[in-house]
């Protein structure tokens, strides 16, 4: 079981309130991703849940029991750190065995769990190496292995893939998702990578300055961002946020249209502009359209084979059903 509830959890470092009172429910078996800009308190929140930081106020409930003052070891949570935090002088096997040794698990059971974790994480050939002799991806897998063998109530990940190169990141992302599907254990995952958040999460928590801006499934956040911050944060490339007369036409202070919801045409459309930079990715093409008379450069996503280039004059038509409207406070207009 791994149901985690935060009730008015607050964290202050000296006079600075990093996390103002915050409420959050994490259901058993859920994959929750914390996203937000750098310094918004994602790691702090994770460390509060782990027990590595003391709360300044509020309660943390794990499976309904107050765990606010429980030491980290007895919360039954396992954490995977960004720096992996492997024990450098111990072999991979000893690293993975460490939490079980500390819990006095008997040797046969230890061996069984190590073998199972190693097989699941492709580490069987490396069990007798030291962490220093492993690649980044392998180290990350050892860190995950060390977490798995504890059979925790929930896994906490703090940007576990940010030290890996792009290709490896995709692979590890899949592995962690598979792991979640197999173990069905609660996972809380901190990242500032869009794609990781969208692809892995059951539920995304968008944070800004320690404050929850919105909680919801990836598609909820994508379809109905509650405010400008979430609208701008979720989705890649970023949503076009347009102010001025074009927004006033829709009775809003700001309107938002995602690049994929704008049609490009060489002949007709709502807004006329000129292609500035064009990025041809093969599968997609991104155009940055200038001189539209709108408040900013418009990003547009078009098909990969489209035959338009830098300097061409084009017409843009936003999909009228996919226009997001925001008021002067930046909140969504229903």
């Amino acid at each position: 079981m791994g149901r985690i509830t935060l009730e008015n959890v607050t964290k202050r470092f000296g006079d600075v309130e990093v996390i103002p009172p915050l409420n959050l429910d994490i259901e058993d078996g859920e994959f929750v991703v914390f996203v937000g800009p750098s310094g918004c308190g994602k790691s702090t929140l994770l460390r509060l849940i782990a027990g590595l930081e003391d709360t300044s106020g509020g309660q943390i409930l794990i499976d309904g029991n107050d765990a606010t003052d429980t030491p980290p070891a007895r919360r039954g949570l396992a954490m995977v750190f960004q720096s992996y935090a492997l024990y450098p002088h111990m072999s991979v096997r000893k690293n993975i065995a460490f939490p079980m040794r500390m819990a006095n698990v008997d040797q046969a059971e230890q061996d069984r769990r190590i073998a199972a974790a190693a097989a699941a994480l492709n580490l069987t050939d490396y069990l007798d190496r030291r962490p220093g002799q492993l690649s980044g991806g392998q180290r990350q897998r050892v860190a995950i292995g060390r977490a798995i063998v504890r059979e925790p109530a929930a896994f906490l990940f703090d940007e576990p893939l940010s030290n890996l190169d792009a290709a490896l990141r995709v692979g590890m992302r899949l592995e962690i998702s598979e792991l979640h599907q197999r173990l069905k254990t609660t996972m809380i995952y901190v990242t500032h990578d869009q794609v990781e958040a969208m692809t892995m999460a059951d539920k995304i928590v968008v944070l800004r300055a320690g404050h929850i801006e919105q909680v919801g499934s990836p598609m909820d956040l994508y379809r109905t961002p509650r405010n400008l911050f979430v609208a701008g944060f979720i989705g890649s490339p970023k949503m076009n946020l347009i102010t001025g007369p074009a927004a006033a036409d829709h009775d809003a202070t700001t309107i938002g249209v995602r690049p994929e919801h704008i049609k490009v045409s060489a002949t007709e459309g709502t807004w006329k502009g000129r292609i500035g930079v064009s990025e041809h990715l093969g599968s997609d093409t991104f155009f940055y359209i200038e001189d539209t008379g709108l408040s900013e450069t418009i990003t547009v996503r078009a098909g990969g084979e489209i035959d338009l280039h830098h300097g061409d004059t084009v017409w843009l038509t936003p999909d009228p059903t996919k226009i997001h409207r925001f008021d002067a406070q930046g909140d969504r207009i229903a």
Partner: protein
Amino acid sequence: MATRQTASLARLMRAPAIILLLIWMIVPLGMTLYYSFLNYNLLNPTGTSWAGWFNYQYFYSDPAFFDAIWNTLALVLGVLTITVVGGIAIALLIDKPIFGQGIVRILVISPFFVMPPVAALIWKNMIMHPSYGVFADIARFFGAQPVDWFAQFPLTSIIIIVAWQWLPFATLILLTALQSLDGEQMEAAEMDGAGSLSRFIHLTLPHMARAITVVILIQTIFLLGIYAEILVTTNGGPGNASTNLTYLIYRAARLNFDIGGAAAGGIIAVILANIVAVFLMRAVGKNLD
């Protein structure tokens, strides 16, 4: 890693320093070796003659010789034990953020700046003196008979003094090692259920192994040659109870003016130092890889 080209260049650049060091080492060693085979007494310099192995036999048959070797080893081991254990303890303490940390650290380091004879005199006259030393005051306060440290426990007293002097060095080296310990590793271990003792044994100690090795090796070099502290406190006595090899050589050279005998003792000391070095490198040297 150096490429082959830079390696040979590096060898060339290193050569002058190494050759100089070699000469610096070989010449005195050679002269000592030469003198150790002579009958050469400063009281009778004209009677200098070839002695063969006599000086060695003489030194070896001196009843003080085995006492001195034993005392040398006891001194080195005793001081090493106290400084390494104490150094780890103090380093752990002053690594914690405390009020006035800067001052505390300077205070901890300060014994190292006191010259050995001065330190020994302070201990002899102000701390361990049987009638007006601090220890005697403490003993009397508790109604006990003051201990005459240098008469009753001469070697132990010297070990205490030398350990006091070397504790700051050990602390300093061990503290820097402690500070380079990764905080996330500690937190990971905390989450893995390791208590503070387990964390110390499984993480802190292995992390400090290299620093401990450095402390042991460097201190051993200096501790084999301890001499000033003995000279100003016990003069090697009572009997030979606090005479180490260095002091024995001093006695041969400066009290008996026997250059040949002293040189033989010097050579024996060099051999002993090398034996100790071999053992040490076997025991702890692998930590330096």
